[in-house]
């Protein structure tokens, strides 16, 4: 099991547009990924409903986890995404989801 911990860079937290872009990227990766707040239960990172209901604020750390041969590459990509401010209206969806 590969894991990464990263602080959410988006100013509104992992809500709205950032949550949408993040879950799209997870779904597009084809790898099952979970996301958890510190001390919280991991949830399916491809579900916008679960990710939004975590309510992660700006600057808080989350832990991503995945299994399999592509896990490290996918997690690195997702870490890059979460370290970016995804609020900017001109940000295009990463990963060409669905």
């Amino acid at each position, binding site marked *: 099991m590969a894991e990464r911990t990263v602080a959410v860079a988006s*100013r*509104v937290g992992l809500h709205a547009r950032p949550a949408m872009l993040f879950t799209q990227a997870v779904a597009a990766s084809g790898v099952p990924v979970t996301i958890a707040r510190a001390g919280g239960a991991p949830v399916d990172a491809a579900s916008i409903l*679960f990710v939004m209901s975590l309510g992660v604020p700006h600057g808080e750390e989350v832990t991503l986890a995945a299994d399999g041969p592509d896990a490290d590459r996918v997690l690195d990509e997702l870490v890059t995404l979460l370290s970016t401010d995804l609020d900017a209206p001109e940000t295009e969806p990463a990963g060409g989801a669905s």
Partner: protein
Amino acid sequence: MTTTSAPAGTALRGVGVGRRAVVGPVAQVRPAPDVAPDEPLLVDGAPATPAHVRTVVERAFADVAAGLRAQAETAAGTVRDVLAATAQMADDAVLRGQVLTRVDGGEPPVAAIDGVVGTFAAMFEQAGGYLAERVTDLRSVRDRVVARVVGLPEPGVPHLEQPSVVVARDLAPADTAALDLTNVLAIVTELGGPTGHTAIIAGQLGLPCVVRVDGVTDLADGTVVAVDAAAGTVTPDPDDAVRDAFERRRAADAALAQDTGPGATADGHAVALLANIGTAADAERVGAGAEGVGLFRTEVLFLERTQAPTVDEQADAYAAALRAVDGRKVVVRTLDAGADKPLAFATQPDEENPALGVRGYRLVRSHAELLDTQLAALARAQEATGSTPWVMAPMIATPDEARDFAARARAAGVATVGVMVEVPAAALRARDLLAEVDFVSIGTNDLAQYTMATDRLRGELADLLDVWQPAVLDLVATTARAGLEAGKPVGVCGESAADPLMALVLVGLGVTSLSMAAGALPAVRYAVRHHTRATCEAIAGAVLRARTAADARAAALALVDPDVAATLAL
């Protein structure tokens, strides 16, 4: 499914917004499907197998997601993001998976969908703030999927194939935004209020609108109705007399619009007639009929995004607006966020009474940088264009706030500084405010809300929100008097400035400028031009002696020139 309940020619009554009148076919915005949770899915009269139900439910989710994605692609800005996020909810594998698990277990599909959506909705509501607001989106996914599953038309705004009168129980802001405006003749709602979102947007678009019309959602799609915003009526199957009368009014309106001279009373007392705008694009549409802009609502620039626009972006937007009105007067209102206009980066999500909380100028307490950036941007736009905009702050309650704002604005380099009068405290002490600033502008919608302790968004309390309420008029009179004493301008930029009858009262009270949706200018100009200042003062005096809102309006009407009343359908 629906029938015409009223006989032909019998008018349904509501509260009109604006003055125009149109005839056109009804297009109903379809409500959420009314389906019992245990309604079985039938195939040829027999309950479907769980496997069949699973296929139907799966396809419903996929179709709804695809439909929302297609809508998102044709939308822009915030609406696009909301629709895209809603599409992704419909596409959510966890949501769909949990529903299918329950369906596989033999649960009726509607109950399964309600159960799973309910769990997520409760989770969102518990989180509060932004997430609680998203429950509306989640429920709209639910309504759409349920409609698909049971074979009903998908709820929401219909695709308009011809110019139509859009009829709804109520319209959410996102519904309004999803309307194809080129084919909207008028908007009629069963709920809502004359100062709610729908009414204000209709006013800005110059669309006739009637709200609080009982029974209007019973009209069948395609029923031809006559919508008269001035009278607040909706008449199904109008006869030729009604159509002819509407046509004469349309012709009269067109004639009124020919007069674009400066606003003045019959005896030449000048009353500046200005337009309200929200964007530089609006400014470009302000025609020769406006002597300038009396209210530039800058929050539109902020609401479109999740972080504050930079000083450069703002300076460009303000400069574009100043250039568009080309040397005419422009009054810029600083950010009026909070309450019904939350901002992701500034609003406190957990306020219990946001209308009484940190909104408007009060944001300076926690986010002074927002105001200072805005003032700096305005100063830059001023330098770049050579124009000299006025600036005013919303939601001022005390002279200290007015002084603080004036100091900040003048330090930034904006010379003419004013404040809004929306809070009764500000109206009562308008004299003290005017000692600190160069002008005031009365926002009658909020002034009515705060004077009457009545939420602007509660349509069923529309009678209390009436700007003809004597208590509200007393505060307007107090403010106008303070302006006359100080020799400083007092404007009105609320919806009441757009009512030709109220405009006469305001002129009589001593108000020096009226700012409104551009479409309302011709009628107001016509009314003011046909009465002397002394008549306006007599009208104002009669209105102030009235005890009720209805008496006040009747007292004004009794003194208006009968020809003017007939021409404007007052």
